[in-house]
C-alpha cells in the first residue's frame, strides 16, 4: 500500500476522487496509468480522438456515441477527474454501503448508470431521446443487416412503448420506467481489478 500511496499522491485530487467515487487507491492508480497512456499529448486532457486510439473501440458499433457520452455538453476535453467520475458509474453497486440520505447519489447507483446510458442516446442533450437519436443508435447497432424501414419500425415501436406523455420522444423518466424491470446493477457494472 505504501508504494501505491506515494504514487497516488502524485495524482492531483486523488484523495477526493477516491472519496467521491469509491475507487480504491489501486484503482485510481491504474486508471491514471491508463489515462496517461491515452493522453498522447500529455496535456492532462483527453479529446475524442484520443479515445480513437483504443483499437477495440473501433470495432464497437456504438463506440462513437459512447465516447461522446464521456464529454459534458459543450466541452471538447475531459480531464482525469471527470474520466474517473464517469468510469465510477460502472462500479458494481455496493450493497452493504450505508445509505445516508444526506449524501448525494453515488456515481454507481442504478439511476446514475441509467443516466449515462441515457446520455449516450441523447446526443443533443435536450433531455429527450428523439426518434432520430434512437434511430441513429439502432442503425449503428444493427448495421447493414436491417433495412431502413425495419429500423424505423423498431424505433417507432420502441418509442410508442416507452413514450408515456405522447411527445414522440423518450424522456429520462420514461427511459427509466421502460427499464425498471431490468437488473441495472448487474447489467451496467463491470469489475474493476483490484
Amino acid at each position: 500500500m505504501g508504494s501505491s500511496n506515494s504514487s497516488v499522491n502524485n495524482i492531483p485530487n486523488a484523495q477526493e476522487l477516491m472519496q467521491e467515487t469509491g475507487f480504491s487507491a489501486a484503482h485510481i492508480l491504474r486508471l491514471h496509468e491508463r489515462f496517461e497512456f491515452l493522453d498522447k499529448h500529455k496535456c492532462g486532457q483527453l479529446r475524442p480522438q484520443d479515445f480513437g486510439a483504443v483499437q477495440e473501440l473501433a470495432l464497437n458499433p456504438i463506440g462513437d456515441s459512447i465516447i461522446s457520452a464521456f464529454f459534458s455538453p459543450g466541452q471538447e476535453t475531459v480531464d482525469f477527474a471527470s474520466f474517473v467520475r464517469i468510469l465510477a458509474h460502472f462500479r458494481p453497486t455496493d450493497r452493504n454501503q450505508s445509505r445516508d440520505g444526506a449524501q448525494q447519489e453515488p456515481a454507481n447507483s442504478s439511476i446514475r448508470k441509467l443516466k449515462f446510458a441515457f446520455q449516450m442516446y441523447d446526443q443533443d442533450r435536450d433531455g429527450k431521446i428523439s426518434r432520430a437519436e434512437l434511430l441513429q443508435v439502432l442503425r449503428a447497432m444493427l448495421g447493414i443487416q436491417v433495412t431502413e424501414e425495419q429500423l424505423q419500425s423498431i424505433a417507432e415501436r420502441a418509442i410508442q412503448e416507452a413514450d408515456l406523455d405522447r411527445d414522440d420522444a423518450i424522456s429520462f423518466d420514461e427511459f427509466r420506467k421502460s427499464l425498471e424491470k431490468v437488473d441495472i446493477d448487474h447489467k451496467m457494472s463491470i469489475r474493476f481489478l483490484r
Partner: protein
Amino acid sequence: MLLLGLTLLLTAAAAADLPDTGAPPLLGPGLGFSPSVSASASAPPLLLLPQPRPEYGAPGVALARSAAEEPAVPAEEEEGPHHHHGGGYRVVQWEWSYVQTPYIIAIWLLVASVAKILFHFSQRFTTVVPESCMLILLGLVLGGVVLIANKKQLYQLEPALFFLFLLPTIVGDAGYFMPARLFFDNLGAILTYAVVGTLWNAFCTGFCLYAAKLLGVIDERVQADLMDFLLFGALISAVDPVAVLAVFEEVHVNDTLFIIVFGESLVNDAVTVVLYKVYISFVEVGVENVQTADYFKGVASFLIVSIGGTLVGLVFAVILGFITRFTKKVRIIEPLFVFLMVYLAYLTAELFSLSAILSMTFCGIGANKYVEANISQKSRTTVKYTMKTLASIAETIIFIFLGISAVDKSKWAWDTGLVSCTLVFIFVFRAAGVIGQTWVLNRFRLVPLDKIDQVVMSYGGLRGAVAFALVVLLDGEQVKAKDYFVATTIVVVFFTVMFQGLTIKPLVDWLKVPRSTSRKPTINEEIHERAFDHILTAVEDIAGLQGYHHWRDKWEQFDKNYLSKLLLRKSVYRKSELWEAYQKINIRDAISVIDQGGNVLTSARLSLPSMASRASFPEVTNVTNYLRENGSGVCLDLQVIDNVPGAKVEEDTETHHVLAENLYKPRRRYQSHYSRHFMPLGEKERQDREVFQRNMKSRMETFKSTRHKRHKKERSLKKRRGSDAKEDGSDKPRRNVSWQDKNPVVVPVESEEEKGEHSDPEKEEDVGITFVARKAETPKQRPKSVPAALDGSPLASPSSPPSGDSHLPWKGSVGSPPPCVSVEANKIIPVDLQQAWNQSISSLESISSPPVPAEPVHPRVSALSRLGGPRPASYTPPGSTAGSTSSIGAQVLQGPFCFPERNKKEEEEEEEEGGAVQEMQPLMSSLRPPGNPCVYLRSLVMAPSPGSGEPHSRGPTQL
C-alpha cells in the same frame, strides 16, 4: 380424489402385473420351465432392452436376475416352433412372449403418464406437494404391490437403463434449452460450486463417515474402510440434475439462483465420474498398492474427463449446426438430427468414458443458437415438444422406479448410525461448502450472493437417481458394505427429494427469495440491454481492462465472423437478432391484442361494413372468435415457442389443442362435397387458397356493385364450368371456383413483394408437419352461409363502397376489413414471423397510409391496425411513392376486370384437355392468360405451380 386415483392406479398396475403371473401357465407346459423361473424370466423385460454393462457383476438380486435372463433369451427362440406343435389352428393365440418387452415398457409409460394426470387434478395439492414426491410415493406403493404379488421385487431402476436412456433425455432437454447467456454469465460460480464444492463434499463426507466408524457410531457390521467411505462420499455428494430440475422448476426462484444450482448439478458430473472411477480402481487394487503417481493420474483423469467431455460435446454441436444448414429440402427430419446428434454426443462421451453429461450439455448449449436459426418453425416446435415430453416422462419413470426400488428387502441393509451420520454430514458440509465458497466468490462477483441465496443453495442440494444408480453399480464383492450404502443412498435420496423438496417452497416463500418472472422482454429492454453490452465493452476497453465483457465481445466477433458463417444458412446469417426479437414481440402483441381486445378493435376500426362479410361468418361476434375459427391456434403455436423453456409447457399444449380442435368448423361441414376432387393439399397451399377465396369475396362485393352485368356473366360462366367440373350441381361450389379463378391475379402481387423484399423463400417451405390436429381439407370449402349472403349482397349495395372508390386499389379491401384480417391472420399462421410482419410493417412505413386517415389511435389498436388496416398498402413495393401505388393498384384491378373473357376461352380449351387436370389445378386456369405479363409472372411466383406445388402438398400426406 387422489386416493381414488391411487386405487385406480393400483388396479391398473395390478392388471399390468397380471400378465406376468398369467404368462407362465401358458408357456410353462410347453417349454418345461418351472413357473417360478419363467415368472422372473418374463418379469424383467426392462432389463432386456439395455444390455447390462460388463461391470454390472451383481450379487444378490441382480445375480438372480442376470441368471434369469439367460433362459429368457432361448425361450423366445423356442417359441416359434412350439406353437406349431400345439396341434391345429388356433383362432386366438396368446403371443405374450412376442410382445412382452415393448408391452411392459408401454404399460409403464402409461402408468407414469396417467399418474401425472392424476396428480394435476387437484390444483391446490400440486402447489404444495412437488410432483417428484408424489411419484416416489406412487413408486413405493407400486413396489409394494409387486412385492406382495411376486414375493420378490422384479423391477428396479437399472443403472444401464438409467444412464443410457433416462438420464440423456433429461440432460439433453436441459442442455438444449439452457439459457446460454445466463449460464456463461455465472460460469465462474457454477464451476466453483461444481468442482470445489463437490470435492469438498465428497472428501469431508467420506472422512467424517470413516471417523464415525472409528468412533463406533456406525455399526461393526458395516465392513468398510477409508476407501469405501470415500467412494460412498463421492457418489453421495453430487447434487443431482434430475432432482434439482424437478424441484426447482416448481419453485421458480430467480434465474441466477436457479442457474447456479442447476448448472452445478450438471457440471459436477465430471467430478463425480472421476472420483467414482478413481476410487473404484483404488478399491480394486487395494489401498496399500496405490502409488503416489496414481493420485496425479486421478487429477489428470479429471482434466481429461471434463475437458474431453466438453470438447466432444462442442464437436457434435458444430456438426449438428453444420448439418442443419443443409436440411432445407428435408425439413421433416430436422428434429431427428437434433435428437440424434445430441444423443450421439452423450454416447460418444460414454464410449470414451468421458463426462457424458458435460458433453451433452455443451452440445445442447453450443448448437442451440445455430440449430434454432436454421431449422424451420415447425421443426423448432417439434424439437421442443418432443424433448419436453421425453424429459418429462423420463423424469416420471425415474422417480417411480426410485420408489419401487426402495421396496426390496434383499437390497436393504439398515444401519441407523450410517444413515443418520450421512444425512447430517451431507447437509452440514453442503451448507459449509456453500457459505465458504460464496464468501470467496462474492469478492469477485458483480452481484454478490446474499445470505438468502446461500440458504436456498444449501437447501437445494438435492441428491437423486444418479447417486442411486451409481451405488447400485458397485461391485458387492469388492465393496462389502454395498447393501448398507444402497439403503443409505435410498434414504438420502428420499429425504432430500421428499422432505427438502416439500419444504423448499415454504422456505423460499418465507425467506422472500426473489422469484423469477416469466415476463417477456419489451423491445426497449431488448434494445437497451444490447446497448448496455456495448457500453460495458467500450468502458472496459477505455479503462484498459480485459474483463468479462471484453472477452465476450471478442467471442461474439469470432462467432459472427467465422462460426456463424460456417454454421448458419446464408439467408439466416444476414438476419439481425434485434430484428428477430422485434418481430417476436410484435407478433406476441398482435396475438394478445386480438385475443383480449378483439371487440375494441372491431368497433374502432374493423367493423364489418358489408353484409356479405358479416354473414359469411355468422356465428362470429368478434375478431377473437373469428381468428380462433380461422387458425389462431397456429398463432398460439408461435407464442408457445416464445415461452421460457420449461414453463408451463403442458398448459400451453393444452390450450393449443383446445383451440386446434375448434378450427375451421364452418368449413368442415363441406368436406364430403369436395374432398374427392382434390388431392389433399399442404397446409400452406390450402391456406393460401383460402386467402384467395376470402379476398376474392371482398372483391366481388365492390365488383358487383359497380359492374353488375359483367359479374353476372362471369357467374354464368362459372356456373357452366362448375357444372362441368363437379357432379355437384348446386350453386355454391361454382361460385367458389369463380373466386378462386380470379384471386391469383390479385394476391400474387403482394406475394412477389414479399419475396423480393426479404428474399427468404426458404422459410416458406415450411412443410412437413402439421401440428393442428385436423383432417386435410380441400381448399374450396366455403361456409354454407356465404353463398347465400352473396346472392343478397348486390341488393345490399348501400353498404358497399361507392363505385368511384372501387377503382382505388385500397378501397376495395378496406371497405370490407374482415377479409383483410383474414389475409393477415392466415399470413401469420402458416408462414413464420418474418414474412408476414416484414410485410405489414414495411407497408405501413413505406406508405403514408392511403387507406385510412392516420387518426391517433391507442397504441395497441394501432398495433393491431397493422394487422388488418393497411393491408392493401402492401401491394406496393417498399419505399415506392404514392403514384406507383395507384398504378399498381390499377394494374391489379385490371386483372379481374379483363379477366372473364380471357378466362372463358381458356376454360374451353381446358375442358377439352380434360376435366381431371382442371380440377386438380383450379388456379392454373386463370394463370395462363398472359395478357399482362407482369401480372402473369407474379401469379406464377405466388400460385403453386403444378410442378412445384404438388410435391409440397403431398409431403405431409405421405406421412
